[in-house]
Structures are given as C-alpha cells and as structure tokens.
C-alpha cells in the first residue's frame, strides 16, 4: 500500500509538510522538520529508483482515475534518477540551511523560508514524477514561484536580490507562458494532456494540423530552454544565483536547471519523438547553442571577480555540455548528458556550499575575500579545490567521468560537425575552466590573507554537508560504473521505450 503509492509520495510529502512548517514555533524547528521530510523523501526516492531499475517503469493513476482521463504519474529510470538527485540535494542543503539561514535571512521570515523551500522541492519532484503534460506546467510554476521568493529572501544581505528575483520572475513567467501556450496548441489538436496520449494523437494530428503542432513544438522548446538557462536565455541565472541565500543557490544550482533538462528530455523524446522532420531543429539548436554557451559562459566566468558569479556563469557553460550530449541523440549522448546532470549537481552543490561557508565566515563572496583562505579555512579550501578540479574534469573526480562519457559519445555519433572538432572544443572549454578555477585557487593558496580579518568558525551543520558532497565528488570519480550504467539504461529507456523512436545506437 505504501509502496504502491511510491511514485507520488516523494512529491506529496513535502507539499503537505510545507504548511505545517509555517505552523511550527520557530525557524529552527521548521528547518529540522524540512530536513526530516527531505530525508524521508530521499529514502522513498531511492526505493523508487531501485524498483524502477529492476522492474521497469512505474505508473500511478492519481485518485484512481484511469489515464488518459485522469492524471497519470509515470516514473521511468531517468525520472527516478533525477528524483533521487533532487531529494538527495534537498537532504544535504536543508540541514545546511538551518545554520546558514540564521545569518542570511530575517528571523521572522525563516519559517516561511523553509516552507518555500519545501514547496520548491515538491514542485521539482512533481515535474519529474508526473506523466501529465499540464501537470508539468503546474509543478514547474509551483517550483518557480517559490524560487522567486527564495531568491528575494537574500535581500537581507544584498538588496540586489530583489531586482534579481524580479528579473527572474519576469523571465521565468515568460518561459512558463511560452510553455503553456505550446501545451494549449497541442491540446487544441489532440484533446488530451496525458503525455503518451499526446504522443499517439499528435502523429495523426500532424497531417491535418501540421502548423499548430509545429508552433506548439517551438513554444514548448523555447519555454523549457529558458527554464534550463540555455544560452542566450540564461540572463536570469547569474544574478539569481549570486544574490540568493547560500543554501538556496546550492539547491537551485544543483536541481532546478537539472529538472528543466529532464522536462526537455521528456518532451523531446516522449511527447514529440522523432517521427517528425522538424524534431531535428531542437537538436541543431542544442548543438550550436550548447557549444556557444560552453565558451561564452566560461569566458565570462574568467573575467568575473565574484566567486558566486564565476560559478553561476560556469553553470551556464556546464548546461552547454548537457545540451551537447542531448544533441547527439544517441543512447551514449543522452546517457552522458544524464551522467553530467548528476555529476554537475554534486560538484556545483559542493562548490556553492563551500562558498556559502566562506560567506558565513567572512561575509563576502568576492574573490578578494578569498586571499589566503588556505591558511585561515583549510577544510573549506580543500572542499573548493575538490569541487574546482571536478569542474575542470581532472581524473579521479566525477567531472572527469562525465567529460569522458561525453567525449566518448561525441566520437561515436554522426553529426554535421566533425566529431573530432567537438571533442577538441570540449577540451578547450575545459581549459577555460582551468582559468577560472585557477583564479580562485590562486587567491586561496598563493596570496597572503587580508590582515585583521577574523574568520568565524563554520558550524558543523554546514561543514558536514559540504565535506560529504566533496567526498561524493571523489567517490563518483573513482567508482563511476554504477552511475554510468544506470544513466545509460535510463537513456535507453528514454530513446527506446516505444514512445519515441528506435534510437540511433
């Protein structure tokens, strides 16, 4: 019975828990509550993954209404992986937030902060779990709206958080609007919202209403591309990440764009599939803009003087890698993109958690504050170095594994661009990562500390999660077989499930 509800439980649990958090006496209790819920959800998501990995895709009809009329929850392996990832990140960042939010958030708002956090978490889980196209929109908006609030809560330390949140609100809403317009167009020609149902009917509708389907496709792709911060639709991301509270940045950077990537995969492969000639447009766009984003993001990161900003732009570049993997449209390519989704989440969480720790101690995330950090905060420095090396893709870190998978996939794929050129570009943009990570490491290790600045000790609640994440970076870099195999299987399911197409092996 409990196990039967497994696909919905990790989604509903935080949603129901959020109002309760507001009712709790103080921020600390709300934080503990949220942490508990996150851990529970993480446990459930793991259970779900293990079931999906062995027994295949799980379906759950909401309220007992059979599909296509009712809302169907449908979790395949790719979804289960992303759900586990999101829940895992939540269970690491929530306890961290208990300490960090005390310094960064107005105390009276901290209960609401955790409630928003839970809602955001629930929304992200929902996007992944649902098999209903409109439900995707609903959950996307649940998570987005709560994210705007979360970003704006950073205003206690920096008023620019408000403009960042407003900017994000406008752009995010535009994206959501595009998305829902696209859904509306599809609904108009198919009369259904169930993804599988849309897929089946859209094939037939395409002959009569080709234009509508095409317009729907373009709107949905653009809307989701904005949500996942594809270059040049990434403008909302750097400021939002920079000015949000540390724990929020860590959580968002590791989950929200990843979930949007997942939604993109879902619509690209499950809803539309590759029977349409125009499906290649998205791949071409991803290939070109992914490559441009890889370089542009890294280049901007090199010139930035704010560590959070550097890492935010680096995220834009890293999303380029994922889009590149998807654009190959092969099992290996999509598998590599999924591997990078997980690995990038882990390494970015590591880095943003460490940056939050520095912000907690020194009150700044400007590069000048990082001078001589190796002497004053050795553990945090070590964590940042591990995360930075992962970002570059040095062997024995998880970044190497995803780049390796990506390069392998690029070699095996047949593209308009010679695959060797793509491989060289991946290597070149990794060198750019050396430059921006190098600047941070240089400041930390080779420059003298600013005299007279006293670093506050980092509390254990912040230290443990970030060290844990750093160790995970190393572990996934050494023992990567499990993850790579899992992601490959997930990609096979995505490409091969009979929903999309036969998959170019």
């Amino acid at each position: 019975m409990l196990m039967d509800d497994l696909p919905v439980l990790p989604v509903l649990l935080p949603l129901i828990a959020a109002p309760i958090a507001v009712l709790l006496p103080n921020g600390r209790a709300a934080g503990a509550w949220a942490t508990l819920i996150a851990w529970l959800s993480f446990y459930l998501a793991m259970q779900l993954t293990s079931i999906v990995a062995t027994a295949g895709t799980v379906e759950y009809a909401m309220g007992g209404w059979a599909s296509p009329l009712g809302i169907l929850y449908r979790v395949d392996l790719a979804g289960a992986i992303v759900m586990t990832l999101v829940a895992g990140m939540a269970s690491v960042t929530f306890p961290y937030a208990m300490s960090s939010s005390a310094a960064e958030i107005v105390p009276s708002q901290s209960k609401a902060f955790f409630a928003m956090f839970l809602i955001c978490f629930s929304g992200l889980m929902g996007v992944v779990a649902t098999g209903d196209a409109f439900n995707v929109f609903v959950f996307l908006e649940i998570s987005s709206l709560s994210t705007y609030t979360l970003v704006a809560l950073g205003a206690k330390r920096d008023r620019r958080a408000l403009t960042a949140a407003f900017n994000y609100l406008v752009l995010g809403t535009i994206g959501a609007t595009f998305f829902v317009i696209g859904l509306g167009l599809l609904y108009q020609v198919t009369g259904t919202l169930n993804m599988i149902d849309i897929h089946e009917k859209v094939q037939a509708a395409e002959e009569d209403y080709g234009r509508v389907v095409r317009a729907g496709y373009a709107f949905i792709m653009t809307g989701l591309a904005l949500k996942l911060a594809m270059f040049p639709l990434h403008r909302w991301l750097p400021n939002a990440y920079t000015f949000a509270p540390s724990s929020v940045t860590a959580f968002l950077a590791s989950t929200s764009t990843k979930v949007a990537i997942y939604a993109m995969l879902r619509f690209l492969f499950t809803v539309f599939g590759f029977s349409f000639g125009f499906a290649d447009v998205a791949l071409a766009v991803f290939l070109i803009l992914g490559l441009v984003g890889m370089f542009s993001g890294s280049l901007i990161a090199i010139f930035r003087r704010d560590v959070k900003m550097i890492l935010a732009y680096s995220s834009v570049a890293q999303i380029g890698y994922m889009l590149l993997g998807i654009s190959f449209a092969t099992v290996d390519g999509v598998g590599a993109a999924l591997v990078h989704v997980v690995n990038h989440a882990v390494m970015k969480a590591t880095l943003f958690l460490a940056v939050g720790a520095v912000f907690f101690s020194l009150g700044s995330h400007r590069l000048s504050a990082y001078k001589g950090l190796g002497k004053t905060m050795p553990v945090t420095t070590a964590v940042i170095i591990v995360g930075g090396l992962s970002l570059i893709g040095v062997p024995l870190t998880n970044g190497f594994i995803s780049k390796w998978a990506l390069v392998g996939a690029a070699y095996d794929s047949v593209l308009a661009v010679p695959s060797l050129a793509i491989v060289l570009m991946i290597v070149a943009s990794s060198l750019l990562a050396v430059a921006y990570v190098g600047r941070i490491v240089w400041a930390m290790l080779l420059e003298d500390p600013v005299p007279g600045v006293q670093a506050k000790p980092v509390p254990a609640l912040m230290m443990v999660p970030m060290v844990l994440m750093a160790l995970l970076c190393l572990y996934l870099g050494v023992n990567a077989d499990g993850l790579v195999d899992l992601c490959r299987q997930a990609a096979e399911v995505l490409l091969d499930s009979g929903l999309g197409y036969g998959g170019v092996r």
Partner: protein
Amino acid sequence: MIPFIPGDFNPAYLLCIAGILAALSPSKTGRGIIGLIGIGLGLLQLRSLGVGQMDSAIYYGVMEIAGYEFIPLRMDKLSVIFATIFHIAALINVIYGWSHATRLESSMGLIYAGSAIGGALAGDLLTLFSFWELAAISSVFIVWAGGTHAAFKAGMRYLVVQVLSGLTLLAGIVLHLSRGGSSEFGKFTLMGEAGVDPVAALILFAFGLKAAFPLLHTWLQDSYPKATPVGAVLLSAFTTKLAIYTLVRGFEGTGILIPIGCVMTAFPVFFALIENDLRKVLSYSLNNQLGFMVCAIGIGGPLAINGAAGHAFVHIIYKALLFMGMGAVVVRVGTAKATELGGLHKSMPWTTVFTIIGAMSISAFPLFSGFVAKSMITLAAAEAHMLFAYLVLLFASAGVLEHSGIKIPYFAFFAHDRFAPSVTGRERPKEAPRPMLIAMGIAAFLCLAVGFYPPILYGLLPYETDYHAYTFEHVATQMQLLMFAILAFMLLVKYKLYPDEVRSTNLDVDWLWRVPGRRLVEWGVPTVARLWHLIWNNLRALNVLVVRGLTMVHGPGGRLSRSLSVGLSAGSTGIVLAIVLILTFLN
C-alpha cells in the same frame, strides 16, 4: 651448472657485473683478474646452457608481460657461435689491456662485450633493443677514452649514429608489434606482395647503420682510429658483428643485401690503398670484410650462412690481432702513420710475426683461418651462379691482400728503417709489453689452429656441413689469386707506381655532412630561430588582441555579461522564440 649462479642466468649479465666491479677496482691487476673471472664464468655458463639446433632452439626465462613475450635467452647454433666468439674476443681484450687499459676502458669494455653477448642471445625484439642501446652507450665511452679532442668529437658523431640506429630499431619494433607481429626476433620479409615493407625496411636500416653499410659507414673509420690502442681492439670486435648476427637472423636471403655487400666489400679497397694511417686502413678493411658477410647473408642458404657466421668468427680474431699489432706499435712509437713507420721488425720481432700471421689470415692464405671461412662465401656465390658477385668478391679478396696483407706489415715493420739509432739518435723502440704479446699470441694461435684444423670451426657453425676447405681446387684458386696480387704489388713498388704514402686526409662520403651539412645546419639554426621569433611575436600580439577583445565582450560590463534590463531580456527571449519558430516551419 656453476654453483651460486642460477641455471638460466644470462652470461651477458655476468660480464656486465664484472664490468661494474672492475669500475670499482682501483688496481689494473685487480681489474684484469675480475675481467678474467667474469669472462670465464660467462663461458662456463654459456656451455652449461647448452646449444639447440637451428630449428629447435632452447629457451630460458620466457615470461609474458602485458601480452608481450620476453625471451631473454635463445640458445641455438647461430646465437651460440656469436656469443662464443664475443667471449673469446673479450678474453683477448682483457689480456691485451692488462697493463694499458684505463679503468673506463676495462669496465666499459666488459659491459660492451656483455651487451653484445646479450644481444646475440636475445630471443625477443625488446631484449635485443635494450642490449643494442647498451652496446651503443658503453662503446662510446671507449671512443672517448682516446682522450683527444678529435676523439671526443668523433665519439659524439659515433653516438649520434648509434642512437639513431637504436631509435630506428625501436620504431620498427613498435610498428611490427602494433600490426600483430610476433615478439620473437625472427626473419623479416623485406619485399612483401605489396612492394617494400616499411617496417622491415626500418629495421634493416637500423641494422645496416651498425653494420656500416656503404654511405652509412663513415662513423666506423671516423671513430675507431681515434680510440686508444686497447680501445680500437675492443671496438673492432663487437658492434659490427652484432649487426651481422642480427642481419643473419632477420634478413637471411634478402636479395638487396648482395649488391650492398658487393659495394661494401669493393669500395673500401681504394680508400685503404691510399690511406696513410694504418689503423684507418684496418678500419676500411674491416668494412670490406663485413661486405663479405653481408653478401653471404644476401645469398642465403646453409652454406652461405655457415660462411657468414664462420667468417665473422675468424674475422673477429684476426682483425683483433691486426689491431693489436698496430696498437702495440702505437704504444711503443706513438703513431700508426705509414709515413712515420718502418723497420720495426728489428726490435719488435714478435709483434711482426703475429701481425704477419694476422695479415695472412685476413688475406686468406691456405693454412690460415681466413681461408677456411672466406672460401665458403665465394663458393656459395659460385654455387648460386652469381657471376658478378663472385667476381667482385675475388677482386675484394685481392684488394684485402694488397692493403691488409701486404701494406700493413710492409710499411709498419719493413720499408724504410726510420728507427735506426743512426737516424734518430736514440735506441730502437722496445718489443711490445708482455701482456700484449700474450694476447697477440693467443689470437695468432687461434688463427693457425683454425687454419690447420678447420673442424674446430665447423663444429660451431649453424648448419651441419661436409665442407672441405682444403681441396685442390680451392687451394689452387686462392694461391693463383694471391700470387698474382703479390706480383702486382711487387711490380707497382718496383716501378714506383704504388701510391706513395703521403700525409693526407682522404675524403669519404662523410665530407657531405661534415662540410655542406654543417653549413646547412649553421645556416638553418638562425633562420629557424628568426622564423620562430617572428611567429612567436605575432602570436603574442594576437594573444593580447584576443584577450582584449574577450574582455570587451565578456568582461564586466561587456556586451555578453552586462545585466540587461528586464525589457531587453524579455525581448531577447521573444527573438529566440521567433528564430525557433522560423526554423521549425522551414524544416
């Protein structure tokens, strides 16, 4: 089995260990004794390892590492005859250098000999390569031990050639292995169905460099005469003969070797005739003797291979004997230039006798060792109906007699008596030191022993043989050749037509890279440097430009990193949507 030494221990290591110990030993006698013990143990170990027939070799210490099969020891008749003669040469060298070898020479000489033995016994390609390089590196010290600046520079040139040979060999081996070739060192096919096989050609080039093929030979005449008297004897024995061994093993019956061998055996005759430095004459004659062997390898077949191996065997002994004789002269007089020698037989009778024995051996007089082996090669050429090769070999045999058989002893020990007390005002030079005489005596004895009783040699040859050197036909042919050659020499000297010994430097093909080649390098280095500076400066300027450009676009406030107003951001989103829409509809 020798106590304390494992049953499958490589004799090469015994010599190398002896070489290292000799380097640590302060006294000359100590070094000599260590050398003798090392070589003695090596010989015993070689015997106890046993000998396999040509097609059923005995292997020791085979082990597989990462899919590559190492065969440190392969004992068959071919490898053992070379290992044996290398031991004998090392032994003679130790005795010869008993009182005159420097510490460097005696230690490096042992390691050098050991690496030649290791190379001959190596069953796989990488082991061969290791010993090939070790031989190159250890021997260059012996050239350098000559002590003069000329010796140093010659040593550098020698090293360049030897290392080039090693690298070429390595390249060939790697290519051979990467296309799935066997790791065992066996026969290569130069001319495949698809024309010349580049891998085999690379390996042949590496072997040919060491074997001093024509045009690749100049390192030999360049470096050997510049070594010390002891060093030259050492050098003459190992490097080229190791190369001959590898050629026999890898390129037996490869047709191209016949013309190479013919050229190789004929052209040094002319250089040797006009050369003044008698040790350089010996170097040319060494080249000429190698030509016989290369020719035999090209002919192929049991008789020719027997001839090549047998010739290498006897050649090492008599060539060492001749170098020892000239070395003794250098030790006593200080020079080996024909224009400054003469009449030494009066005070150096034993050296004279031994040198003449060496000279008669190299000239292949019946009853001397050269006859026994060389006739096999000429007979093989005749049996294969290679008239041209046969004639060239005959011509070269006559040439050998001229320059090594007659010229060396004649000008060094007879001719004008330049050391009479009435001329110099000093006593005549003394007889060679005793250890040198003993070494020469052993070598001379071996020359005569093989000459008088050829079965000593025939038992060692790779293939079973029922060859008889002393048939009427062989002896008569050889004697006619020799007599007419001597007659020619007499007549030439009598009518003063024989090229006078003059102090001169004779140009060989090495002039090509020592003069125009040097100019090219002297011109090339600054030109390349200038070009590089030009490129580098431009690159730097470009780099500055790129960084500046990137800063403009991506730096803080740059076009791509500026925080846009909400309206502009929203507008750009609309543009992207429009583009995607257009693309979708166009498709």
